[in-house]
């Protein structure tokens, strides 16, 4: 049987494909473009911040840059990337299924994403957006920029996110192979499943609140405009009802990748499979109860401050459970060290430091000083961006042989990984200190005493960018010229490795019958 890559080489065969793997590759291309675009905006911001006074841009262009950096990175890269690329490619394979449950919907999701992304980027043409990715009313409703276009774009991208989530939930419920009990599902599947729940429940609320901001902006509806009797704080409630869970939409799939990588390369069972699986679902639900911690200084009621404060502490416990379980998984394993493991180590470092600073900012009184300063910027970049980016790259390397049937160059990969991780740490550690010193975020100009930390941060960003460029170059090169890979080069027990490399259109030659767990290294590869 021919591989999915070889079955039809025309452009058309790719664009109208219903094969989950090809859709995954399409999403890989689209989200990588988004990463590059968002990265360019990030560098523009860092260049401007080299000096305390305006240098390259005026204030409006600067505000547009960080808004588009945020919007592109959050809605076009981090939210969709791991579910739509690796979830699409590997979720059905991990379940032993020939495809997702609703393949046409899957393709539709891709085109809806493209449509939304196009509308979102069209807003650049119409004058950009300068409201920050949070679109806070009433600034967003009075801003002279193309707010309505941008929020409509985000709304459309949200539809794509809902469709993907819906598809994955249905797939997990109805497409498991024979013998695949719930507690035999790979941990990546659990993570994607939990993510899908959040996507389906939270995204509509974001979509609605953004539409309302768009309506306020375009037609003067005044739902959030105090001059017309609206309450701007309500927008923040609705926005964070989605956007706090959205943090978990970004990080849960990354946690799924961690579980796969750490088990495969330590050739060990997870220290507690159930703890990881159940904490994914726990995060999905408790994550909905913490949105108010973004609003401690907004004038929210004292009751809400207390309640959201303590609930935020509980959600940290679930993450802590995962971290400890991963570390314990290494214990007495048989560890192969390579690029995915280096990224795993980078993830642990960034996630633990970022997570701990998260507990710190969730402490109500400390948040007064840190709120809306660079401390918060550094915190969420460490945990959310660092977590997602390192695990996106780890997944690119870990599954590269299965996806393309070739190997990547290990030496270059390690160099790239070191550059990315060090660059990341150098970019954002100074920002923690800037936040402590009191520098507010979204500042085009700043007082001179903050300058040298900003220069360090920009230097770090340069290293990070170089690392990403190196990685992109050798990975693209390896797709066409890499050494041929076998079916299971890592000696994994994951079910996706049972398929031929690269997999044929419907994944498995014969239907899988599962008789062992996904991390049973004492069992032979084929049960």
């Amino acid at each position, binding site marked *: 049987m021919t591989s999915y890559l070889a079955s039809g080489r025309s452009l058309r065969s790719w664009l109208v494909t219903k094969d989950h793997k090809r859709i995954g590759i399409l999403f890989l291309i689209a989200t990588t473009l988004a990463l590059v675009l968002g990265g360019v905006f990030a560098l523009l911001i860092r260049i401007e911040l080299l000096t305390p006074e305006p240098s390259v841009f005026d204030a409006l262009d600067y505000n547009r840059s960080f808004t588009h950096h945020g919007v592109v990175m959050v809605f076009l890269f981090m939210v969709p990337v791991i579910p739509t690329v690796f979830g699409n490619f590997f979720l059905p394979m991990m379940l032993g299924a020939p495809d997702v449950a609703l393949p046409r919907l899957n393709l539709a999701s891709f085109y809806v994403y493209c449509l939304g992304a196009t509308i979102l980027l069209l807003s650049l043409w119409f004058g950009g957006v300068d409201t920050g990715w949070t679109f806070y009313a009433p600034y967003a409703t009075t801003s002279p920029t193309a707010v309505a276009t941008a929020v409509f774009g985000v709304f459309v991208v949200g539809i794509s996110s809902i469709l993907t989530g819906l598809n994955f939930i249905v797939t997990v*419920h109805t497409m498991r192979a024979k013998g695949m009990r719930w507690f035999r599902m790979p941990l990546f599947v659990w993570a994607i499943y939990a993510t899908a*729940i959040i996507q389906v*429940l939270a995204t509509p*609320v974001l979509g609605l609140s953004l539409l309302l901001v768009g309506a306020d902006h375009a037609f003067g509806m005044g739902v959030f405009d105090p001059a017309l009797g609206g*309450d701007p*704080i*309500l927008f923040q*409630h*609705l926005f964070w*009802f989605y956007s706090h869970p959205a943090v978990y939409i970004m990080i849960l799939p990354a946690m799924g990748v961690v579980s796969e990588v750490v088990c495969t390369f330590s050739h060990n069972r997870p220290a507690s499979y159930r703890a990881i699986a159940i904490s994914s679902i726990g995060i999905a639900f408790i994550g*909905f*109860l913490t*949105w*108010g911690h973004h609003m401690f200084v907004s*004038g*929210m*009621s*004292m*009751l*809400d401050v207390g*309640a959201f404060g303590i609930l935020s502490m509980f959600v940290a416990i679930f993450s802590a459970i995962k971290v400890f379980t991963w570390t314990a998984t290494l214990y007495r394993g048989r560890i192969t060290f390579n690029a995915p493991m280096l990224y795993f180590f980078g993830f642990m470092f960034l996630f633990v430091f970022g997570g701990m600073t998260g507990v710190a900012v969730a402490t109500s009184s400390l948040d007064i000083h840190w709120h809306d300063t660079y401390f918060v910027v550094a915190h969420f970049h460490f945990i959310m961006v660092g977590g997602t980016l390192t695990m996106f790259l780890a997944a690119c390397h870990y599954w590269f042989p299965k996806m393309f049937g070739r190997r990547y160059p290990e030496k270059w990969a390690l160099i790239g990984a070191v550059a990315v991780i060090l660059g990341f740490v150098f970019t954002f550690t100074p920002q923690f200190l800037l936040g402590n010193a009191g520098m507010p975020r979204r500042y085009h100009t700043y007082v001179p005493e903050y300058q040298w930390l900003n220069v360090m941060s920009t230097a770090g960003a340069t290293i990070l960018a170089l690392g990403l460029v190196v990685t992109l170059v050798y990975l693209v090169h390896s797709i066409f010229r890499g050494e041929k890979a076998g079916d299971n080069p890592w000696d994994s027990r994951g079910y996706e490795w049972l398929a031929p490399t690269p997999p044929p259109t419907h994944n498995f030659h014969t239907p899988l019958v599962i008789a062992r767990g996904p991390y049973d290294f004492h069992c032979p590869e084929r049960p």
Partner: protein
Amino acid sequence: MSESSSSSSGLSYILALVSLLALTGLSFGMHFAPLGGGVGTLVALGIATVKVAIVALVFMELRFGTTPIRVVALTCLSFVALLCLGLAADVGFR
């Protein structure tokens, strides 16, 4: 899912229609009853909930739905409640 066990009988549809119309009439009538504003609102919303339950259970055949489908329905409803309560809690205690 076989036909006989998984769909409502004709009679149940008609009974549902009749009770929905009756509840609508009741709700309409209660509008003119001299209840306090708060109580009247609660009664009207209570009746609406019963009506939606009838639509869901009979017309939408939730009675015969699988466990995942029921879980989906319940989860979504409780999240609507969560959102409304969360917002009201802030405004009510500000």
